[in-house]
């Protein structure tokens, strides 16, 4: 209990530090405040234009797609706030930055993710919430207590799934010793698979993204369930999120054994 309290104290202190750092460079934050919303609003506008030409995408009309897109962007935002480091793990491995974490009396994984909060991630929430609200309005989403709960579970699950996958991908750099981050491709792939209905992809890809890499559970399955009035998908998302994150943590532990504190 003491231990858990200590961990929480440490991370809360780092939240404070992150906010202070952000306030120190207001122009930087304003830059992101413009850049991230522009990216997703433009992205959504292109979907809107395409749907206007074609009618629907695999039976999903414009309102349904906004609902899906909103969930994808909101979970993206939270995963950026907590787990963006996973994208840049190669940089830490090559630079020998894990030395510092290993010398401290706290879990390395905990320190890596919860002693550096990426406040900038909140700027992704703005377009996410806007598009989601718009989608909810279009599909006449009913804000019952059950549905609110389902949405909260779903966002938590989706964030954990994304975070878990980022950690697993990043952990490979313990062996590859590559500082290449592939952030652009990772994001593009997640965007393509979470912002559009998964059913439009070939059968094989759907199976992989459902059972092997659980990207389908970030937004597609839970959104589909919610739109047909059941929160079952959201519950499954949460379970898969917890499992993915646990596996990722174990994998990280294995990877850390191969860490050589290489330096440059």
């Amino acid at each position, binding site marked *: 209990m003491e231990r858990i309290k200590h961990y929480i104290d440490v991370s809360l202190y780092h939240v404070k530090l992150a906010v202070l750092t952000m306030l120190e460079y207001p122009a930087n934050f304003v830059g992101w405040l413009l850049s991230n919303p522009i990216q997703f609003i*433009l992205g959504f506008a*292109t979907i809107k234009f395409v749907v206007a030409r074609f009618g629907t995408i695999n039976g999903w009309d414009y309102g349904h797609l906004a609902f899906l897109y909103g969930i994808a962007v909101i979970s993206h935002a939270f995963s950026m706030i907590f787990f963006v480091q996973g994208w840049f793990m190669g940089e830490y491995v090559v630079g020998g930055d894990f030395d510092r974490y290993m010398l401290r009396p706290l879990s390395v994984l905990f320190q890596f993710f919860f002693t550096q909060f990426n406040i900038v991630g909140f700027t992704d929430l703005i377009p996410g919430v806007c598009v989601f609200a718009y989608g909810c309005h279009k599909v006449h989403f009913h804000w019952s207590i059950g549905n609110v709960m389902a949405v909260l579970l779903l966002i938590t699950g989706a964030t954990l799934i994304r975070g878990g996958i980022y950690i697993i991908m990043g952990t490979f750099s313990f062996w590859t010793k590559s500082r290449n981050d592939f952030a652009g491709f990772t994001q593009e792939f997640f965007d393509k698979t979470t912002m559009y209905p998964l059913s439009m992809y070939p059968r094989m890809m759907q199976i992989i993204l459902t059972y092997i890499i659980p990207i389908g559970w970030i937004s597609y399955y839970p959104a589909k369930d919610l739109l047909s009035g059941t929160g079952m998908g959201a519950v499954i998302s949460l379970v898969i999120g917890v499992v993915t994150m646990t596996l990722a943590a174990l994998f990280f532990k294995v990877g850390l054994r191969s860490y050589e504190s290489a330096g440059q």
Partner: protein
Amino acid sequence: MSNKSAYSFIYKMRIQKALAYRFDVFANIIFQCIAMFATAFFWKAIYSGYDSVQGAGVYDMLTYTVISAVMSILFVTTVEFKLMESVKKGTVAMDMLKPVPLFSIYFFEDLGNITSLFFINGLPILLIGSLFIGMPLPADGVSAALFFVSLLMSFFINWFFAALFSLLSFVTINMSPLIQVKKHILRLLSGSIIPVWFFPEWAQGILGALPFVYIYQLPLDLYIGRYTLQTAMPKLTIQLVWLVILSGSFYAAEKSMTKKVMVQGG
């Protein structure tokens, strides 16, 4: 050592550097192919039940996707990051003292980088795309010729735009968010993923007046044969005008900016 041999040295260095990391090479190919396949599936799915939308069929869109993926490699620029880092660390003053002009170094570094990327990423992607998505053949000989002319101008428009943009490093200290804005705007408004002719008329009108569509959209349109020789000429002229405007503004801005370099740190 004359400038010419300095440039060829910088160019070769970049090629060797890019080849040094085998893992990165393979991972890059895999990731880029995944992104390309996702886009191809998107078009296949959305075109089910349609033969042709806005004058383009699904085959055109698959060609568009493969060629766009290969083209994106030619448009990789590092000049923004290089200058930003150099200004941040204060080494820009030293770099400017070197006997070779700063931006020429950046240009040849980018050119070297692109050359190696083309062979180690571009060709494999083209091959994989041809085998699994569809042979991306140009509409006809004239289309292919016009495509290469346009592509050459696109390359320079893209580079001068990046170089002009990089000069903002002298004004703001942290460029990272701005580089992201530039990247996203370019990606979404240049037609690199979704051609702008799927956009509403008003949006097409606005984008036609901006330089972005002359980077990806025009060469790609020429490749899939949306223009004849006669209808292509006005478009290519606008492209040339943008090239002149961007390169001209770059030279002018570079002159005035480098005069007021303020060295931080160092």
